[in-house]
């Protein structure tokens, strides 16, 4: 394992473009081009898909290797790869897609040619996903799709979208859902940006107005989409303890608390603030082991991740939120300014403000606000606790 870790680290040191690394270090905006460039670099190395089996051009790494890769990735400030392409769509396509779909789409994901986004949530269907209403009506060799998806992440950059659509209103809600692949360039698709509370454009409403989708873009069977969706969810949840990202954020927090001054000493010398850091660090120490225990258990029993990942999701999201909050509080008054331009690399800045407004300061408060989403998306903390009490505790 240590040998593998060293290899990964060496690769990041050598191949990660400095401009991209700096942007992540300072929490600046990434362009689509940045992400594609990075995917192509990984592809050349043969690491285009860390979580795929070799047969599909993946690395074939086991779950622990994937964990190490993710940890080093975060530590190196390398961008995460498109999770919708690699961790959500691909496993579904590899399991339920047909040969033609696999041969056409998967290579284009690996090479970075195609980036995917997800069409799941709708205005009326959040935690209660199965109540979705976007319709797909069969007409000859096409489906005609109408409706609205929301809470769509990064759709403004995506080339394709995979959607859950309603192909039948008979029987239980779950039985009338199909899994459809749609080209974002199709006529009738409108992408409306949704601005997040931190002022950033990260998610979208996507409107479908009589969008024609070839039937060969259907995954598996019609009305079986719910099965594929549930399959996808467990894969989405995998590794969302986010231990690597939390470690990185903790490191950052300590840097900030060492830079910021309080009573003429570094803030971290104030036992009251340091105790706050200590409290979160303890949670993270525990989570790292809990995460490994879950991974090794799954590995030993060679099964897919079960409901125990809900524990990881809950803790991981709480910890990243607490770290974001502490970073903001470490700034003191400097948490108050909201200087949008400062989020672009080329900001020269307000000279007076710039004198004390450190390079790490601009994104901090926004990150705290933005991170509130982590206990909401991909199954809110409340939903995760329902899963735990039902599937683990049998209540």
């Amino acid at each position: 394992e240590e040998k593998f870790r060293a290899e990964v680290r060496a690769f990041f040191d050598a191949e990660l473009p400095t401009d991209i690394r700096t942007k992540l270090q300072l929490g600046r905006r990434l362009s689509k081009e940045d992400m594609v460039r990075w995917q192509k670099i990984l592809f050349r190395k043969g690491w285009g898909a860390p979580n795929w089996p070799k047969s599909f051009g993946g690395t074939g790494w086991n779950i622990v290797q994937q964990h190490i890769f993710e940890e080093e990735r975060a530590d190196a400030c390398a961008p995460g790869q498109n999770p919708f392409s690699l961790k959500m769509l691909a496993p579904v396509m590899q399991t339920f897609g047909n040969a033609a779909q696999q041969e056409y789409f998967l290579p284009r994901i690996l090479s970075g040619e195609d980036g995917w986004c997800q069409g799941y949530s709708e205005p009326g269907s959040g935690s209660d996903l199965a109540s979705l209403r976007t319709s797909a009506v069969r007409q000859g060799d096409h489906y005609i799709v109408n409706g609205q998806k929301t809470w769509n992440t990064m759709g403004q950059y995506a080339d394709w979208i995979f959607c859950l659509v309603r192909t039948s209103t008979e029987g239980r809600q779950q039985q009338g859902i199909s899994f459809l692949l749609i080209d974002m360039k199709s006529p009738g698709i409108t992408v409306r940006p949704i601005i997040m509370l931190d002022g950033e454009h990260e998610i979208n409403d996507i409107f479908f107005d009589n969008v024609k989708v070839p039937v060969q873009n259907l995954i598996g069977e019609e009305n079986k989409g719910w099965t594929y969706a549930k399959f996808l969810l467990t894969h989405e949840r995998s590794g969302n303890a986010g231990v690597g990202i939390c470690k990185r954020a903790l490191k950052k927090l300590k840097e900030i608390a060492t830079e910021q001054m309080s009573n003429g000493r570094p803030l971290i010398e104030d036992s009251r603030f340091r105790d706050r850091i200590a409290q979160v660090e303890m949670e993270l120490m525990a989570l790292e082991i809990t995460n490994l225990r879950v991974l090794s258990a799954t590995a030993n029993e060679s099964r897919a991740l079960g409901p125990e990942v809900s524990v990881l999701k809950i803790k991981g999201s709480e910890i990243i939120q607490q770290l974001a909050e502490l970073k903001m509080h470490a700034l003191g008054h400097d948490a108050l300014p909201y200087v949008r331009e400062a989020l672009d690399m080329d900001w020269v800045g307000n000279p007076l403000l710039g004198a004390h407004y450190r390079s790490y300061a601009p994104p901090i408060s926004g990150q705290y606000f933005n991170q509130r989403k982590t206990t909401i998306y991909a199954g809110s903390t409340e939903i995760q606790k329902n899963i735990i009490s039902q599937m683990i505790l049998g209540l």
Partner: protein
Amino acid sequence: MEFNYSEEQLALQDTLQRFISRDYDFDKRRAFSASPYGFSPEAWSQYAELGLLALPFPEDFGGLSGTAVDTMLVMEQFGKGLLLEPYLSTVVTCGGLIRDAGSDSLKKRLLPEIGAGKLKLALAGYEAAGRYDLAYVTCTAQESGGSWRLSGRKTVVLDGASADYFLVSARSAGKVYERDGISLFLVPKDAKGLTVGAYPTQSGARAADLGLENVAVGTDALIGAPGRALPIIERAVDRAIAALCAEAIGIINALNEATLNYLKTRKQFGVAIGSFQALKHKMADMLIAAEQAQSMAIIAAVHADSEDAADRRRAISAAKAYIGQAGRLVGQHAVQMHGGMGVVDELIVSHYFKRLTMIDLTFGDADYHLASFSDTLRPTA
């Protein structure tokens, strides 16, 4: 203690509520925030007409001799409507400071102008490396031949972008962190050598950093005795904290109202999400936090004008710390229970949340004030 508002107070409250629903709805507020100064000059003159801008001043200076409780009532509405105008800086903090510590001539000169809405002031009391400590003053003040010369920098001056005058703390003697040797000066925005670097804040208002290079002001610009300004400034800030606590209460109650309403209308799994016990109990926690926070705001208001600094410190710090914690709980729960809708810019909920967060970070956050309250419990203290 009297817990019921008087007739006049209820009338004032009612007026403000009607003003907000008529002239300050969420969309208008968005536009005001986007405008150059980040607030509505029209609203400012309306406040003047309503007498709000003269509320805490003595009658002799055209004021209404309002109490801290009156201010509390106004600030609660500022919270509810997320009003952006520089009321806290101009009227509560600086106006109050001049009322308490200014010379009669200064009061005659400024208070009526403030009351009439013709003058805006901002307090420049903090410096970058000093965190929340008002005694951290490196900005220098030297007297020479009938005038003072100020040099140094001040940071995150609230409402600094629109202020006509700044109240600037500068050190005329002693070393940084020493309580003695700090003086306070009235500096016009167009003073030679003064640079105002303005920027927006996370809650949609405007603040500024100040650069002073050998700025010259007359001896009449000095407020209070030279080197003795810190207690004056601390008292003004304590009053501002009490007012911020009230603003926070307005927001907390508005968030609870919005969340309760969402729980009753938002449907998932075929039922209103308010029918889930886990959410019911969270909502109950939010109500309890609001009630307790309200009580703390009352304590702050009652002690805000106290001459006894120790007694004030205890009440003000306890209130700011407690309301910071309660605001955190209510804000985070409100966002969480709104789900996806809680983290987008569209609904006012996220704006309440952001303002509440920034209130905690203003004039010392919950941990800072918990510590200063805790320190008052030392037997040796």
